[in-house]
C-alpha cells in the first residue's frame, strides 16, 4: 500500500500540485486520470522520487520515502518497477539484456537462473523469440510489453505505468491494459497507472483518482465514475459527443 499526504510542488513559481493526498491499495489497479497538464505525471514522478515534492509525505507500506536517506530510498526503489511512456528501453542493449538488467545489478543469481527468470517474464507478457532483438527492431506495443517484463522481473511490489497506451492502437491498448491488470492480480502488486484514456478507466479502473489543475478532485472507481456529479470530471469523461449522447440515452 502507498499512502501520500499533503503533496505540494511548484516549478519556477508555477503551482503544479496542491495538497494532494490519497492511498493506493495493494492488489488492484489504481488509476490517476485527468487532462494534459493537470499534474498527473508530476505526482507519479514525485511518488517514485524522480521529482522532489516541496512538502508532503509518501509512505511505502509504512516506510517514509520523501525524507528517507539515499540508502533507504535505494532499497525501496528496488521494489519498484516502472513502465515509462515511451518504454525507456536501453537502446544499446538487446531485449534480453534489458529485462535481465535489474537482476544483473541487484541480485547474485547465476546466469542460468537469470535467463530462466527473463524467459518466464517475457513469456508472461506474450513475447517469445525476441531475446536477441534490439529495441529498435520491435514494434511500439512490443516495447511496452518488454518494459512491463523489465518492471516486474524483480518481483516488484509496486508497479508504476506512465501512460502505457500512448501511441498504441485500440486493440493493443486493451491488450496492454489487461496484461497490467492480470499481473497486478496474479502477483498482488500495488499498481498505479497514469492515463487519460477512457477505455483504460472503464477496463481496469478499480480505483480512480481524478486530477484537475494540480488538485485531487475526485476519488472512486470505474463502477461509479460515470454517475459523478463533479462538473470538471463530467467534462473530462464526456468530452466526446458520442459518449455524451450515449449517456443521455442511458
Amino acid at each position: 500500500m502507498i499512502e501520500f499526504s499533503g503533496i505540494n510542488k511548484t516549478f519556477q513559481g508555477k503551482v503544479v500540485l496542491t495538497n494532494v493526498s490519497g492511498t493506493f491499495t495493494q492488489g488492484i489497479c489504481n488509476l490517476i486520470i485527468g487532462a494534459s497538464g493537470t499534474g498527473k505525471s508530476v505526482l507519479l514522478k514525485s511518488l517514485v522520487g524522480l521529482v522532489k515534492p516541496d512538502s508532503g509525505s509518501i509512505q511505502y507500506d509504512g516506510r517514509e520515502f520523501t525524507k528517507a536517506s539515499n540508502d533507504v530510498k535505494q532499497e525501496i526503489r528496488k521494489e519498484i518497477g516502472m513502465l515509462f511512456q515511451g518504454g525507456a528501453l536501453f537502446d544499446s542493449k538487446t531485449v534480453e539484456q534489458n529485462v535481465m538488467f535489474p537482476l544483473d545489478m541487484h541480485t547474485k543469481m547465476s546466469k542460468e537462473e537469470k535467463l530462466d527468470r527473463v524467459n518466464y517474464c517475457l513469456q508472461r507478457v506474450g513475447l517469445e523469440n525476441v531475446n536477441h532483438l534490439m529495441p529498435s527492431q520491435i514494434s511500439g506495443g512490443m516495447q511496452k510489453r518488454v518494459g512491463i517484463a523489465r518492471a516486474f522481473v524483480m518481483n516488484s511490489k509496486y508497479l508504476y505505468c506512465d501512460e502505457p497506451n500512448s501511441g498504441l492502437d485500440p486493440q493493443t491498448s486493451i491488450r496492454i491494459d489487461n496484461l497490467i491488470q492480470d499481473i497486478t492480480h496474479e502477483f498482488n502488486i500495488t499498481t498505479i497507472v497514469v492515463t487519460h484514456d477512457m477505455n483504460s478507466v472503464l477496463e481496469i479502473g478499480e480505483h480512480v483518482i481524478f486530477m484537475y489543475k494540480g488538485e485531487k478532485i475526485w476519488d472512486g472507481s470505474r463502477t461509479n465514475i460515470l454517475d459523478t456529479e463533479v462538473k470538471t470530471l463530467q467534462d473530462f469523461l464526456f468530452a466526446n459527443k458520442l459518449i455524451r449522447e450515449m449517456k443521455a440515452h442511458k
Partner: protein
Amino acid sequence: MKTFGKYLILISTLFIRRERFSVYAKLVVDESISVGYNSIFIVVIVSSFIGAVTAVQTGYNLVSDLIPVSVIGTIVRDMTILELAPTIISIVLAGKVGSNIAGHLGTMRITEQIDAFEVMGINSASYLILPKILGCMIMFPMLVIISGFLSIYGGYLAGTLTGALTEQEYIRGIRSGFQEYNIWFALIKSLVFAFIISSISAYNGYFTKGGALEVGQSSTTAVTNSCIAVLLADFLLAKLLL
C-alpha cells in the same frame, strides 16, 4: 557560478552509491574500445599532416644560413610533444568523443532511459558517466603517444620528400637536446584534457531538457565548452609545469 557548482555536484555524485567493481570494469573496457578504436583513423590523419605541415613551414621560414636545417627536426619534435599532439588532438577528440558523449547521454535523458536507471535504484550518473571518464583517461594518453610518433614521422616524410633536409639531418634534429620531461608533460596534459572533455560533455548531455533539438544543442555546447576549457587548462598547465 551556478553551472560550475552543478558541474562539481555531478562530479561528486559519481563516487557515491557506486555499483560493484565488476560492473564498472566491463563498462570501462567497452568505453575505452569505443573511444580508442573509433578515434584512431582521425588521429592518424590529423597527426601525420600537422607534423608534415610543421616541417614544411619551419623549412620555409629558415632563411638564415647560420641556422642548421636539422633544427627543423628539433622544432617538429618539440612542437609535437609540447603542443600539437596533446592539445590539437584533444581538441579534435573534443569534437568527436565529446559530441558523442553529450549526444548519447542527451538522448538517454529525453527518452527517459536515465529516469529508468534512477527508478531501479541505480546511480545513473555514476553508472553512465564514470566509465566514460575513465575510458577517456585511459585512451587519450595512448592516442597522444600514437599522435606524437605519427606527427614526427609526418615531419620526416615531408622534410625529406620535399628536399628541405636529409634523413640524417632530421634524425640529428629530433635527437638534439631531447628532454624526457616533455613527454611526461604531454601525458599529464592528455590526462587532464581527457577528464575535462569527458566530464564537460557528460554534464551537458546528462542535463539535457527538451527534445531532439536540445540534444543537438547540448552536443554543440559540449564541444564549445570543452575546447575553451582545454585551451584554458593548456595555458595553466604550461605556466605551472614548465
